[in-house]
């Protein structure tokens, strides 16, 4: 039995799906589990003060470096602070930086990308050229340098990372829009006298939205990783404010005595990142199927 035979195209390539297996791509159980996890993290971090948690910055020298106990479900750190509460409050930093920065990127890069793909011409050429040059620039280095010299409170980090993401967001959104901008429904809308704004928001946006959301989520994941890296360099929010990155970074000192310290924030971050990626990817796959039906 040939392996390639299983993959090779059939007489009608358009009729065969890419695996040679006939099943509709649908979001699976994991999608819902992880979507639930994201919702849980978001809700918990917003409602943190209402959850009856211990003060995340409250030191307690009678209970330092403990593993999980009934009093501290996830244990305590080197100052006896409750890890559960710090993980939940720490999520706020990741969420604000991740979603905030990508929102900034989307507002500017996304709008530019859609307009450029729709209008084409000089605007498109110019913005695209600029984006190419900006992408050649080592954004990561620039981000660290600017964060270090300009100051690293959470809002500045969000703004800097957001701005740095604009050229990439621009390119992705432009590419996604381009494939729709020349379709009949756009030309039809134009010939019926629809305004550009109306076409962009009513005709194009709904079509590119799944692709954009998918990229947005994966982008949020990358930004969260970047925030963590900054924390390791001491360039994220300053202690004692909890962030996942800070917590993992601080855990290194006590790694041999208390590995729990590293485990829980890492786990929280890992699961959150996997969830974002998985949801983003599922959206894209489901989208692809609809795309090929057109």
């Amino acid at each position: 039995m040939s392996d390639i035979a299983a993959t090779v195209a059939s007489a009608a390539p358009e009729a065969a799906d890419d695996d040679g297996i006939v099943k509709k791509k649908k979001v699976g159980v994991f999608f819902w589990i992880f979507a639930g996890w994201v919702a849980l993290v978001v809700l918990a971090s917003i409602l943190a003060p209402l959850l009856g948690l211990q003060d995340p910055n409250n030191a307690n020298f009678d209970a330092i470096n403990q593993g999980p106990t009934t009093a501290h479900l996830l244990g305590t750190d080197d100052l006896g602070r409750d890890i559960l509460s710090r993980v939940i409050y720490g999520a706020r930093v990741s969420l604000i930086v991740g979603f905030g920065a990508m929102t900034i990127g989307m507002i500017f890069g996304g709008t530019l990308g859609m307009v450029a793909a729709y209008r084409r011409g000089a605007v498109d050429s110019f913005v695209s050229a600029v984006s190419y040059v900006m992408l050649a620039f080592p954004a990561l280095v620039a981000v660290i340098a600017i964060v270090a010299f300009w100051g690293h409170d959470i809002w500045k980090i969000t703004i800097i990372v957001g701005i740095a993401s604009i050229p990439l967001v621009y390119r992705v959104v432009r590419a996604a829009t381009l494939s729709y901008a020349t379709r009949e429904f756009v030309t039809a809308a134009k010939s019926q006298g629809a305004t550009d704004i109306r076409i962009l928001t009513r005709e194009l946006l709904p079509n590119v939205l799944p692709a954009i959301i998918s990229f947005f989520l994966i982008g949020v994941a990358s930004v969260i990783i970047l925030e963590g890296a900054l924390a390791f360099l001491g360039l994220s929010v300053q202690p004692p404010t909890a962030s996942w990155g800070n917590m993992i970074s601080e855990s290194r000192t006590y790694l041999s005595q208390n590995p729990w310290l590293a485990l829980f924030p890492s786990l929280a971050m890992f699961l959150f990142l996997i969830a974002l990626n998985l949801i983003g990817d599922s959206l894209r796959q489901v989208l692809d199927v609809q795309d090929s039906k057109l």
Partner: protein
Amino acid sequence: MAKFLFKRALALIAILFVVSIGTFFLIHLLPGDPTVTILGPNDTAHNKAVLLQQLGLNKPIWQQYWIWLGNVLTGNLGQSFITHATVTSTLAHAVPIDIELVIISQVLALGIAIPLAIASARRPNGLLDRVSTTSSFAMLALPPFIIIVFLVLIFSIHFHVFPGPGSYVPFTQNPWSNLHTMILPAIVLAVGSIVIYFRLLRGDLISTLQEEYITMARSKGLSDRYIMWRHALRPSSLSLLAAAGLNIGGLIAGAFVVEYLLAIPGLGYALVNSIQQVDYLTVQGITLFVAVVVVVLNFIIDFLFTILDPRIARE
């Protein structure tokens, strides 16, 4: 082909020019006063003015840029106000370490990702494919710092297989110990690369295997293995190559977390150090260097594209 490369080379120079402006102004527009850094906050205004004059910092900024660019083109990136080392010598010390790291990690990554992608693409949705696709998701969600923390915990603290942070040994001093210390960081960097390479190549292989010319190759009686390596791999490796270029460019300085955490004195380490010491010139030099490497790498990749896919150089 020659014309294509010539055009690319022109674009390369234009981009490098813009990048040099970007680097220069990025550093100069940032807050911070080099006279304060050098003389301390309490020196007299006169001394500061003298120093500014010495450093050429009192000239109009465009003039400063041209002087700086002229120096850069002659290989003079300046001398750190802080450590008094020339930026060029800092680069000369750090870059070989990054080259070593990149080589080891990329050999690891490609050596794992390519065979895995091929095996997965042969039977999409088969057991191997599902296992590797799922694990690639997990690996995607593992930032380098988490991997380091746990690798150190397991391999250095518990099993003492690899030395922990801060035990870097230069290659010239003891190649064997040097390799030993480089394995851990190389693994960490490889993990991120494997995910990218595996996913791209698998996807591209699966769509290449749908192509009519693969059916045609089968109709000649060629073996699956031959078809995979000779007919499918090459047209499928374009995105892999592009990604490898970007990725390697990113690793040159992007390895900073790994280098900083394991105290390996590569570029990323030097970068973080000079940022923390507010050493503008060194930051500027490293940024420029990395930008140039990224741009040149992309140029090389464009060139490799024309070899991999002869259609590209056609227009």
